[in-house]
């Protein structure tokens, strides 16, 4: 469904150039949930931005649903690939009602039957019709993220790109949103790429996981390997031990991993 080969992203040029992503390659099958984990600055979100067409400064090959992608994307592409962002407070227009937020993509793509589509989308993300004419400030964080998911789903996409969809939410709300995403994926046979810094969240959702550090995929592993706590790369092992909680000894043994050395 998605095939990425030798993806490079460079910001700036000359001496000040920053290579945010270097030689990243991976494949995601249709109906698969693929995870990318890494710390801030690892380039994980940049990869997602390239895939959905928000970033134009890339080179390499990206084939989505059999079509090689160029910098400029078509309208049909955006109907097929939708994105859900991290911050539900920042990604919804504060002065638009839920109704308007959801009807805009329908109008842009000229799908028609706006009324039924909105009701259906709200239903699907577990918000009743009572939420239709509310503003984002009248919703809780979890409800907002549900609206953001509904906005992505209303175009009936086949691929959903999820950029830290639950990191701004409380853990109890995170559980609800993760359950929602899992259910939707199964019902509609969607393809997901989930980006997160949280290993447990990625292991919960994905079968295969790529670990990124400083723009490079250091390791791609199956979820069983992660659950057995037996990754090969020392960087992944360090990430795993750090996410287990506070441990004085582990804190002393933290190393810097410079990707160019490995």
């Amino acid at each position: 469904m998605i095939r990425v080969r030798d993806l490079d992203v460079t910001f700036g040029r000359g001496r000040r150039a920053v290579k945010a992503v270097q030689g990243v390659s991976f494949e995601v099958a249709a109906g698969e949930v693929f995870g990318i984990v890494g710390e801030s600055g690892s380039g994980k979100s940049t990869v997602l931005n390239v895939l959905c067409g928000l970033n134009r400064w890339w080179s390499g090959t990206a084939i989505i649903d059999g079509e090689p992608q160029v910098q400029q994307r078509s309208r049909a592409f955006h109907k097929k690939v939708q994105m859900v962002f991290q911050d539900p407070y920042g990604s919804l227009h504060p002065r638009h009602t839920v109704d308007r937020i959801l009807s805009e993509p329908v109008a842009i793509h000229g799908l028609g039957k706006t009324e039924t589509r909105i009701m259906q989308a709200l239903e699907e993300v577990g918000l009743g019709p009572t939420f239709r004419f509310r503003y984002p400030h009248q919703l809780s964080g979890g409800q907002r993220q549900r609206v953001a998911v509904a906005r992505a789903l209303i175009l009936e996409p086949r691929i959903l790109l999820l950029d830290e969809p639950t990191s701004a939410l409380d853990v109890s709300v995170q559980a609800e949103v993760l359950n929602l995403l899992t259910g939707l994926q199964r019902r509609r046979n969607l393809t997901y790429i989930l980006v997160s810094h949280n290993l447990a969240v990625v292991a919960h959702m994905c079968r295969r996981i790529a670990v990124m550090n400083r723009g490079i995929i250091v390791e791609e592993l199956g979820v069983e390997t992660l659950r057995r706590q037996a990754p090969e790369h020392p960087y992944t092992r360090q990430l795993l031990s750090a996410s287990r909680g506070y441990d004085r000894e582990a804190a002393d043994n933290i190393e810097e991993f410079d990707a160019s050395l490995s």
Partner: protein
Amino acid sequence: METLLDVRNLRVTFRTQKETVEAVRGVSFSMGREKLGIVGESGSGKSVTCRSLLGLIRPPGRVAADHLLFDGLDLLQIDSRRMQHIRGRRIAMVMQDPKYSLNPVMTVGEQIAEAYRIHARASRPEARRKTIEMLEAVRIRHPDQVYDAYPHQVSGGMGQRIMIAMMLIPGPDLLIADEPTSALDVTVQLQLLAILDDLVQERGMGLVFISHDLNLVASFCDRIIIMYAGRIMEICEARDLHKARHPYTRGLLHCLPRLDTPPGELPVLQRDPAWEEGTP
């Protein structure tokens, strides 16, 4: 253990034209020179509780309590001048995001030195020397260079170390850290906690550590307070967290995805209205 802080029946209310919000509703706890964690979801009142200790609740917010005893002194009874002597010097606070807590147009060294000069009435060279010493204590590798850096030139983890250095330079008895590591990567978080841990041990400070991350707090602190809707649900020893009784605590623990359990539907927290009334 000697009691450093004793809070009895703390209530904080915010009255607006439309309604009165009770953010904290009868919180009581006491602590010594230990690491105390306060855990809760957003809106549970954990930050407001700590801000009221420092007199940082502004109108229309109102703070009331039977007493807020800090080292034998009732923080509610003293006037604002005496409060200034306590705030920063004896009780210090580290906020969540160093980007918003540091002055963007002043070098970090000057900011720390300023804090020291105000509290200790020291000369400029003395303050500089002390500042560099403090930057070393929070394990910043080139303290001379960092002294002259502006906040935007340092990383998030470094910024938070700078905040800790600034807060610790007057040698407070109690440090309140409000989600000090939530904006940081896990490895940086671990290193920062190690620094806090060492400083608390060496200086014999009390530490109040506010966080939404139950497992992190359990691995770092000595005792944990679990808050919900402005009330304390449960206080337990950190190492006994897995034996926690309260359904809210158990619900919070269960709804986390874990590496050592097979994936599937995550249990969703069922909120009981009785928790809000404080009847267990």
